[in-house]
């Protein structure tokens, strides 16, 4: 991921890049950036030749610098727990946990003296010290394509993106390729949707391109709802132009002139960054009419979601954009045939679109060579739970869970490894025996799980798997839109049974009913939410059945379930329950 050699500062000046992702901002990184910018401005007064290129002063970007220092901001590095992060280029040094108190020291010793302050560098729990970001095991085991710019470019500066080859892919697609060559390239690359199901992106585009319609649309699904997954937020905050470019290419390939970024209202910073990027791209001529003088028109707008998990389902998402209740429709027709206002609509996940500019720039073969044969490329995972380093990682598909958890995330902390929950509320819980299984779309599906959006929750022996299933089901149950009974009533009944388990009141009959319902809800629900809601239950039943059986005997092997307290909670829930036959 090293970008040090081709740093945009051709004069070789030092760049002090403070992370301004949501995580670091909340740890106080903007104060650090301002203090640094101020001190560097003072150096200028002291006749040390420097120029400031901060987020607020893009107009100053042309100020010539001679061996000067710049204070910059960047998007998320994915290493939020160590923030605020300060990256120093061209050396690629990473300072962690930087506060305003450290600023004077940094300016005196590092900016002026060229010294690396070891105390600020990343320390592992066994006292290893790493000065360069790229050498930290958390990063050295990664392969960054969609996140290659995150933590490095200024997300509010289009020139930074251009300096990294940004918009070259769009220009190549629009000016040199026919639309069918573009979708063919994406198809040949083998890119599969990163939002969950892994549908081949090029094939989706081909379907959309084949539709005959006056108006077609491209939609970026940034209604990132899975709890524990934040790759879309990170990507949009850190490298928003990548999404703009990916969407414009999708528009060209499918024949759409309008694109919509549908993004969660809970991500205010990401909303601001993508809006800013769209404006800058319009001004620079990457969006608008007659792009690159070819007659191709494409423009983007942003629509904010309003906090409904089901809106991430593509037919429900369409309803939300149309201003309706976000409830799903049966498919077919698929959105590529009849989507927004009945027009062909291509809906892609943000990470999927983030791969597109690179595929067009480097070619299908380059992409197909990365990762696994049936699942080329990389995937981002949000790693959390009982691991040494939590955060956002991007690794080649096909690596094993063990490599991701032990080599990149630094291994399990606490007790012994017990399970890993992959793919959020729609995903499954895998056990020790899966650690050496390569992670691909298909292998995970065979194991009963799914990559989903890429949440990876690592759990140690102290975690009760029945409680984990209950937690995820309580989430999907609450988010069920209520349109179809299998999901509305089925998840409710399943949750009640799980609550009986965690309260120590479940019977043999409950276990049988839970299995039965699990199958029924998965088979007969209308949309993806209901179809996948039982997955956490299904996989824990499959791989941790002994824990369910222990609960029948009034014992929680992990010691997590408090059988007395939780009994009260479950009776409270009954107030809202709906009788199976109940039509009022």
């Amino acid at each position, binding site marked *: 991921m090293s970008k040090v050699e081709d740093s945009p500062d051709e004069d070789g000046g030092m760049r002090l890049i403070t992370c301004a992702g949501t995580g670091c901002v*909340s740890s106080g990184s903007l104060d650090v950036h301002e203090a640094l910018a101020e001190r560097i401005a003072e150096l200028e007064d002291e006749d040390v030749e420097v120029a400031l290129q901060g987020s607020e002063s893009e107009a100053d970007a042309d100020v010539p610098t001679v061996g000067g220092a710049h204070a910059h901001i960047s998007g998320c590095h994915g290493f939020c727990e160590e923030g605020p992060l300060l990256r120093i280029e061209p050396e690629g040094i990473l300072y962690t946990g930087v506060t305003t108190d450290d600023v004077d020291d940094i300016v005196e010793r590092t900016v002026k003296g060229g010294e690396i302050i070891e105390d600020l560098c990343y320390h592992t729990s066994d006292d290893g010290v790493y000065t360069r970001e790229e050498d930290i095991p958390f990063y050295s085991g990664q392969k960054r394509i969609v996140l290659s710019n995150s933590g490095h470019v200024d997300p509010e500066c289009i020139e930074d993106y251009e300096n990294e080859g940004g918009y070259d892919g769009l220009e190549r697609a629009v000016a040199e390729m026919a639309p069918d060559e573009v979708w063919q390239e994406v198809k040949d690359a083998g890119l599969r949707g990163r939002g969950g199901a892994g549908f081949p992106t090029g094939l989706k585009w081909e379907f959309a391109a084949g539709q005959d319609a006056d108006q077609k649309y491209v939609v970026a699904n940034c209604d990132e709802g899975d709890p*524990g997954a934040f790759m879309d937020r990170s990507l949009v905050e850190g490298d928003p132009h990548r999404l703009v470019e990916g969407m414009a290419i999708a528009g060209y390939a499918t024949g759409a002139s309008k694109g919509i970024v549908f993004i969660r209202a*809970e991500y205010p910073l990401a909303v601001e960054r993508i809006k800013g990027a769209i404006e800058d791209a319009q001004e620079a001529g990457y969006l608008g009419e007659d792009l690159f003088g070819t007659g191709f028109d494409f423009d983007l707008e942003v629509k904010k979601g309003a906090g*409904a998990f089901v809106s991430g389902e593509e037919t429900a998402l369409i309803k939300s954009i149309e201003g309706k209740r*976000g409830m799903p429709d049966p498919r077919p027709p698929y959105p590529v045939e009849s989507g927004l206002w009945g027009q062909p609509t291509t809906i892609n996940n943000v990470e999927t679109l983030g791969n597109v500019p690179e595929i067009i720039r480097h070619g299908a073969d380059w992409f197909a060579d990365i990762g696994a044969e049936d699942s080329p490329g990389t995937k981002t995972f949000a790693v959390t739970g009982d691991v040494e380093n*939590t955060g956002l990682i991007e690794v080649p598909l096909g690596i094993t869970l063990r490599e991701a958890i032990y080599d990149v995330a630094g291994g399990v902390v606490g007790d012994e490894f017990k399970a890993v929950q992959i793919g959020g509320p729609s995903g499954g819980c895998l056990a020790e025996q899966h650690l050496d299984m390569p992670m691909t779309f298909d292998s995970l599906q065979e194991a009963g799980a799914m990559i989903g959006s890429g949440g990876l929750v690592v759990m140690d022996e102290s975690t009760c798997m029945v409680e984990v299933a209950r937690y995820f089901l309580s989430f999907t149950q609450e988010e069920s839109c209520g349109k179809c009974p299998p999901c509305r009533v089925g998840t409710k009944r399943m949750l009640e049974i799980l609550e009986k388990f965690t309260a120590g009141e479940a019977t043999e009959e409950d276990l049988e009913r839970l299995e039965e319902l699990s199958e029924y809800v998965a088979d007969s629900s209308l949309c993806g939410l209901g179809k996948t809601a039982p997955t956490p239950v299904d996989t824990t039943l499959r791989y941790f059945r002994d824990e369910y059986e222990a609960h029948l005997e009034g014992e929680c092997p992990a010691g997590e379930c408090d059988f007395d307290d939780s009994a009260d909670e479950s009776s409270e829930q009954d107030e809202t329950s709906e009788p199976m036959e109940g039509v009022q």
Partner: protein
Amino acid sequence: MASNNAVAATAEFELDEDELEAALSEVPAGQEGVLPALHEAQEMYGYLPEAALEKIAEVCDTPLSEVVGVATFYDHFSLQPQGDHTIRVCTGTACHVNGADDTLEELQSELDITPGEVTDDGAFTLTTVRCVGACGLAPVVMVDDDVEGSTTPEDVPAMIEKYREGGD
């Protein structure tokens, strides 16, 4: 306990039609404008007063029943007056496994309200949110647009004090 101020505010609310109409001038025509309009109105008033919903129905040329249906479908919108500050406790996976419940409990006891309610002095609304995507800092609490990371029950009094003093 829910706030009496909140009830009083609903009764007292008088819509400045011109002001709202001006704010809605940019929203797309027809039903497509409903969600953006609801966002605008909620940003202006902190919640969606009945009179504002009626106005939105008129501006977006959409039946009021439909507008109310949309407003009640999405968690982000509230038909009740909100406190000056909204405290959202993340209950996403990372926060859940890192003790979000403890922080939530402490907030409930400090503010003397349960999620969905407003404090008596109208300063705070407490609510839960499914994931704010700042999982590296779990457990996370969002106050208005600010993210407070690595929260513990011990942090709660200071957090409340900070926003109470900061006004709105």
